[in-house]
């Protein structure tokens, strides 16, 4: 009895001590760490900060020399210009943002709908020359878009897909499906096939077993994969600039790039458009951040 009391008393403070010493050791190290990280953060974040600052400066502050870091008047005029045309009504930029939303959203949805079942099939079934097939699928991602853009341009011209949102949706889907298959295959591999076996013995069909038992476990993986696919489609520039020309079809990246050029550049408008362009991806990634890192929750299979 006495022994157990002693143990109970002695472990208490001991347990308290260990982390605090570790923390102290960490503090000594962290001076250098913090310094280096600060330098890195400044280098990485300065362009972003400058973009945000420019977007809320009045035009004469934008062009002021020396540059004004803090001492300027805040205005939201540039953001207004992004969405509203000077003569009233919608601006060309706002149309291109809408186009981006449609193109990125639909292509991501299509890639997910096609890629997830394919990944499941590659993970669960014995497919002839599976490795070769998977490599072939991945190899379509080896090529940078600029290499294939000319042949695709010629093909699209025949098909009437030039300057057509459907054309962009198809090409982005084609690029995102391989990525989705590869990402999702990893997630499906993590979910034991025995859940589906058990479900089939319970009396479900194979597809029901996938739909009711495996798919819910894949949702975090699907969210993570979809975010990456969405970011790819949202940011894509090369295909967008080659395959579209009119303001009504153009997505945001070429539209923003189009603002630069001519005799004068309205940097305030460019910066505001860029901020608006960056925001949705940041917000979406923030919303699914838990799923991005959580991966798949594993359940009751002992291994």
């Amino acid at each position, binding site marked *: 009895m006495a022994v157990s009391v002693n143990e109970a008393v002695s472990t208490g403070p001991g347990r308290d001590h260990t982390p605090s010493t570790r923390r102290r050791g960490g503090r000594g190290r962290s001076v250098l760490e913090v310094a280096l990280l600060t330098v890195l953060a400044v280098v990485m974040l300065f362009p972003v900060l400058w973009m945000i600052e420019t977007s809320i400066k009045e035009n004469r502050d934008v062009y002021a020399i020396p540059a004004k870091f803090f001492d300027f008047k805040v205005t939201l005029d540039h953001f207004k210009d992004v969405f509203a045309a000077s003569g009233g009504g919608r601006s060309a930029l706002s149309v291109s943002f809408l186009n981006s939303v449609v193109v990125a959203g639909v292509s991501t949805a299509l890639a997910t709908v096609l890629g997830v079942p394919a990944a499941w099939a590659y993970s669960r079934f014995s497919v002839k020359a599976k490795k070769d097939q998977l490599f072939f699928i991945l190899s379509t991602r080896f090529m940078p878009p600029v290499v294939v853009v000319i042949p695709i341009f010629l093909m699209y011209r025949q098909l009437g897909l030039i300057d057509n949102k459907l054309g962009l949706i198809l090409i982005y889907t084609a690029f995102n499906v391989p990525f989705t298959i590869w990402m999702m295959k990893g997630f499906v591999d993590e979910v034991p096939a025995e859940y589906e*076996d*058990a479900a*089939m013995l*319970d*009396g479900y069909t*194979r597809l*029901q077993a996938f739909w009711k038992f495996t798919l819910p*476990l894949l949702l975090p993986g699907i969210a993570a994969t979809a975010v990456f696919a969405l970011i790819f489609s949202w940011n894509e520039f090369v295909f967008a600039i080659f395959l579209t020309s009119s303001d009504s079809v153009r997505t945001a990246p070429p539209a923003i790039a189009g603002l630069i050029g001519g005799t004068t550049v309205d940097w305030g408008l460019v910066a505001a458009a860029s901020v608006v362009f960056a925001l949705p991806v940041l917000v979406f990634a923030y919303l699914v951040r838990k799923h991005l890192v959580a991966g798949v929750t594993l359940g*009751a299979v*002992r291994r």
Partner: protein
Amino acid sequence: MGTVAVHGLRKSFGKVQALDGVTLDVPDGSFFVVLGPSGAGKTTTLRAIAGLEKLDAGSVHLDGRDATGDTPAARDLAMVFQSYALYPRRTAYENIASPLRARRCSSSEIAAAVEQMSSLLHIERLLQRRPAQMSGGEMQRVALARALVRRPRAFLMDEPLTNLDLKLRVEMRTELTRIHRSLGGTFVYVTNDQVEALSMADQVAVLKEGKVQQVGTPTEVYERPANQWVAGFVGSPSISLLACHAEGDRLVGAEGWTLPRPRWTTAENGRPLLLGLRAEDLSVEQRGDASLPGELYGLEPLGDRTVVDVQVGTEMLKVKARPTFTGTPGERLHVTVDLDRAHLFDAGTGLALSETGR
């Protein structure tokens, strides 16, 4: 309620021949154990019965009807997986209810069936928990309940006790036998644990490298192993095998010893044989003329008995002795052999010699 028959099952995974012509006949209502070391093809056999494995050749008959091409759902079987395979996002209740939901039972039927099962397996207090909140033994019970909640043609169990600790495993052995008696039904039970096989089975099929070595009652498999491999696999400590041949009315060992020739053997003189002796049929007390000279090599005190390793020439004998037996390594002693219970195998084929005279 259900017979299971498989015929000539063949299945290979790449270069590995997992099943090499497995034929089994499981009678209705029996507790049928498939026993073998890991890699013998036990689980593949079970999965083939369940319809989870595509076969290279062979057929599966359920209740006399060819079910080889049927989906797992159509076969009307229930299975307990070695990993339990409980659905992680669902409570124990929902796990157990799953087979009934798949078959569109009413919720009152489901509630009644789950309640009955949970009281049979003493898991009432677990019903609202998820698998992550249960211990291995608790998950095992829930997995069992999920299988037993329906009355399928047969229950398939894939090493359900392997992941439990020893005490729980012994407990569950008794429990499963009790459940089989009270529920009835055909059980096909796969294990690599010969104690499970011998203690629970009505019939045992011993499997090795995808081939059935022997099918019989536990007593038959233990007392009359069909070949040297079965004799070695079943029984603990494992059987001791000594090279010898018959010469007139004597058995002459390769190490020079002689024993009276067992009355029942018909082996011709000079044919190379293996003499199989189980530890309990040997004794370190010298009596009669059927004894082997040897040297004490080591002792394994096991509480209720001591296993004595005796070296005979270059070969080792495991002898069961009283727990109080003591000795020093190197000590010379004689091992008395109960020849009526000895086994003889052909040294070339490994097959047991006919024991018709016994």
